């Protein structure tokens, strides 16, 4: 039986040290130059030298497009999951039976 000690925790000390380091980081931050010269284009976001639209908020990437990047990068993970979601009740019941079998085998071996 695994018996792992989990007693080394103090949230109060953690928060105090966190706040102290926030002060350190903010002190460093405040040493930098906070200003910049406002010109016609200085606030434009970088889009490879193209002129940004008048309403720069239009440059924000929408939520569903944001998720596209995850789906693309995690394709190898999503594809089998999507294949598993066939929409047929029989397939879902098979998953339930398989999961139940695994749980019962675990309980039989451990308990």
């Amino acid at each position: 039986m695994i018996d792992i000690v989990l007693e080394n925790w103090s949230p109060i000390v953690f928060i105090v040290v966190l706040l102290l380091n926030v002060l350190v980081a903010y002190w460093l931050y405040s040493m930098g130059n906070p200003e910049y010269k406002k010109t016609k284009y200085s606030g434009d976001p970088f889009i490879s030298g193209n002129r940004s639209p008048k309403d720069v908020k239009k440059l924000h990437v929408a939520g569903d497009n944001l998720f596209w990047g995850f789906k693309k990068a995690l394709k190898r993970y999503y594809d089998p999951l999507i294949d598993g979601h066939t929409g047929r009740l029989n397939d879902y019941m098979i998953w339930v039976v398989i999961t139940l079998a695994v749980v019962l085998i675990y309980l039989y071996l451990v308990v």
Partner: protein
Amino acid sequence: MVDAVVEWSIMLALVLLVSAIGIILGLAYKGFDRKITAMMQSRIGPPLRQPFRDVKKLFMKETIIPDSAVPWLFNAAPILALVASLVAFAYLPLGPFEPIMEGYGDLILLLYLLAIPAVAMAMGGLASGSPYATVGAQRELVLMISYELPLAVAAVTFAYNYNTFSIAEISSQPVWNTVGIVGAMGFILILAALVAVMPGELSKVPFDQAEAETELAEGLFVEYSGRNLGIFYIAEVVKMVFVGALFIALFFPYQLSNFIGLAGPTVPLIEMGLWAVLVDVAFFLFKLLIIIYIGVSLIRVAFARFQIDRANYFYWGPMAIIGLVGTLLVVLENTGI
């Protein structure tokens, strides 16, 4: 009451000291990394103190906040990244010195603190409202959930072997002394998986997809400038030293003074002579140098950037399997099968 105040004051003073040491060491090792990388690429490279100059220059430059940004989130992200890296430092043993926050946090806390700078970077990228930064933020988050798996496997294996998550207890006895041949093979596999995690944690080539200068024009940081970029720079170097120190604590917590007879193996720090402490500090810095050289500089020079989906496959496939096989070997030895 007075004792408690004195104790707290000493602890907070030490936390400040360690934070300062973390920043200075980080910038110094960054200089070493850049120099050695340049030498491996047959370039002269910048002087070792160049990172200090870079930070100074960035702090003097204008801090531009794009019109498309969410200003408070955009400005808070670098501070959050630096704070998480600095706090993590206080929970680690540094050479002959025990962790300042010994008994107040463990390996699980360190893993969470390790994840916060990456989340802060993604947060800042998304808050900047730039399409390049948005793609960079997506990649950073994908990379983070990828390398967390082998990292978590390693943490669980250590906890299983030592029956604790306490970093001080884990580092009090080198892992190689706690296992036999089979267990040692398991921990060698865990070490290999963690060496592969290191460049991912630090967003270095071959896992710098979130920045990817040649594709995304610095990605996450494309809109960052001046002091904001300077703080991110410092956060990055502090995290580099932190990850190196974590490696030392987990795998190589040896002290040289024991071997050369300056201090006995069980002598507490307070009874050690000045020379013994100096030797151990120097040895710690040397170990850190070697780990940063292998985990950052050498890998950066030897490999090209992976595609983001391949980086994900690399961590969830081969590295997770290597880590799990390592865990299995450790379990097999501990259960005596």
